[in-house]
């Protein structure tokens, strides 16, 4: 993509190398599989080992065999993954931001030493259970409960729309315990803990989405995450994931733009490439324009995160802006491709379908609007 703003100059050598290495991996390993995976509704589990070997899992954590990437480098890695598919990026976002991060930030040394190395090596997979069928944008209303009983906690409730749910070895589950929301580690195979894959998705088909059911599920007291107390701790994890989504969306949008540009330059109608028509140029310019704006803003966000961001509102700004931008770009690219665009030999419609879910997950577009609205006006529209 033409780099008129010299974005490249704003990146360090480490950041460029991380991006390029993940890009090579995506081209060589993910792209040959992804169309069929999406078609078959299958997450490419066979890539987990290689993603771990590349250092994608827990990549911002220092120690425990993790890469210790800065936030910008991490963001660029997520951009490259979602250039292939939002589902593959979602797998990594969840493992990193929603599983390894809470264990690292809120867990005991014993929990960290037990889980982080195997999660980094891809020998264990994690998922994050916050959302419930009736409590999406309003997670504080959750019905899942935990009560202490002797040496155990007893969990009851159900979690919905859980990425990686059926393939996870460990679930970070939030439940109300004495009227406070707390985080717990629930291991696969614990009696009373079952998972069910959600079928029939028209989006994120190369990703596992599941329901988690907890029926008198007993876990030892030591499986509580001591630092994960209050909804704030869950939202802190979500902000990590939202940041990775902001970068990922740029990758998806870039893939669509590149496809549409190439197609428009080669597709001849009325004896001229359609790229030569004003209406098509307007579409291409708009896509390119928005991708470049998003990159510059999100890079700045990454730099702010690296020095410590007290107010997470800019993360909402970026998630909101970039996913909307990407969804628009994907739809526009599909339109430029005409009938060809509805066939999965081209990537744009797959991205468009994926981004429909990304638009409303990890904080819907509207909720992010209200978070920014609250920051501007001082008035919370959702409470």
């Amino acid at each position: 993509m033409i780099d008129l703003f010299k974005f490249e100059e704003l990146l360090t050598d480490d950041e460029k190398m991380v991006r390029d290495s993940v890009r090579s991996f995506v081209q060589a390993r993910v792209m040959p599989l992804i169309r069929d995976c999406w078609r078959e509704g299958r997450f490419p589990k066979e890539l987990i080992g290689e993603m771990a070997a590349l250092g994608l899992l827990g990549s911002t954590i220092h120690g425990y065999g993790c890469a210790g990437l800065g936030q910008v480098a991490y963001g660029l890695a997520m951009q490259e993954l979602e250039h292939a598919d939002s589902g593959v990026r979602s797998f990594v976002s969840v493992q990193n931001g929603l599983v390894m991060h809470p264990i690292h930030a809120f867990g005991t040394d014993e929990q960290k030493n037990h889980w982080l190395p195997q999660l980094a090596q891809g020998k264990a997979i994690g998922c994050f259970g916050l959302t419930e069928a009736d409590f999406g944008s309003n997670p504080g209303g959750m019905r899942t409960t935990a009560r202490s009983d002797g040496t155990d906690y007893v969990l009851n409730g159900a979690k919905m729309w859980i990425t990686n749910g059926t393939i996870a070895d460990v679930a970070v589950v939030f439940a109300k315990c004495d009227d406070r929301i707390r985080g717990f580690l629930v291991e696969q195979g614990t009696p009373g803990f079952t998972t069910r894959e959600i079928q029939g998705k028209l989006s994120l088909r190369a990703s596992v989405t599941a329901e988690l059911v907890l029926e008198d599920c007993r876990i030892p007291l030591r499986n509580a995450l001591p630092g994960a107390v209050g909804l704030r701790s869950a939202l802190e994890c979500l902000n990590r994931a939202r940041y990775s989504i902001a970068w990922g969306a740029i990758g998806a949008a870039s893939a669509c733009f590149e496809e549409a540009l190439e197609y428009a330059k080669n597709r001849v109608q009325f004896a001229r490439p359609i790229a030569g028509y004003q209406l098509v140029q307007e579409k291409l310019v708009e896509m390119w324009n928005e991708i470049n704006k998003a990159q510059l803003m999100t890079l700045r966000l990454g730099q702010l995160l690296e020095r410590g961001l007290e107010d997470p509102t800019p993360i909402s700004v970026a998630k909101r802006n970039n996913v909307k931008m990407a969804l628009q770009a994907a739809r526009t690219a599909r339109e430029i491709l005409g009938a060809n665009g509805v066939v999965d030999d081209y990537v744009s419609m797959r991205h468009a379908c994926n981004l429909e879910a990304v638009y409303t997950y990890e904080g819907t577009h509207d909720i992010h609007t209200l978070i920014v609205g609250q920051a501007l006006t001082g008035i919370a529209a959702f409470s």
Partner: protein
Amino acid sequence: MKVLVPLKRVADPDNANKVKVTADGKKVETTGLEWKPNPFDEYAVETALRLTEDGTKPKTRAGEVVVVTFGPKECEITLRAMLATGADRAIRVEAEDDQLDGWLVARALKKLVEQEKPDLVLLGKQAVDGDTNQVGQILAELLGWPMATSAAMIKEDGEALLVGREVDGGVINLKVRLPAVVTVDLRIVAPASVYSKLTKADFKYNEGVRFAPLPAIMQAKKKPMAVLKLADLATDTALRIQYPRFEPPKGRAAGKKVKDVAELVDKLKNEAKVL
């Protein structure tokens, strides 16, 4: 085994359309180009790594892989990426692209080989920018070492290498005694192309070059990068190859539509004069 891999950055072949010639036609405009390692040189690094391991423990090196490039400071990212991929040490020889030709690079490499004393110099068969395909051959001649070019298969065999070269109609198998100079072709990165003496016979690599693991990228800064002056390696830096003038290729002319085979044959015979 100690392997020296000279490599070159080239204008990203996927962005070849951005390569421009300066107004006076004297040189290729290099500002604003996106750079990539020459693909054949990446294959040479991959080959060097495969020759110094058993395939199952990519972090453990049996021997040493040293990468070297000639170029300005911006080239260091190319070397760092190779250090992240697994090379042990890097050397950058300070030079500008227009101060170099194959003859000078080969002579400077000869001097470097005398200092470094590698068992093997591995190069890409050619750089995809100038396509001169000569540095490896000149270097072998200057060193008086055995040489095998365009290798598609390498197997370590005692103090020698068995090298398979794909040619029209088959494969030529050579045995070169070490120390030697070998240049590699693209099929050297196939799953079963390179076997060190440690590699099990049934071991298969992933197709292609390995990816730099992210933790290794973060640690690549800790690996040594030496900077040498071109004058330290070559006293005579006059260029033997002169490029008097560059011209971009002419744009492709529009095609012609013919209404039937007879017209096609007529045009091929009388206009194109190829029949």
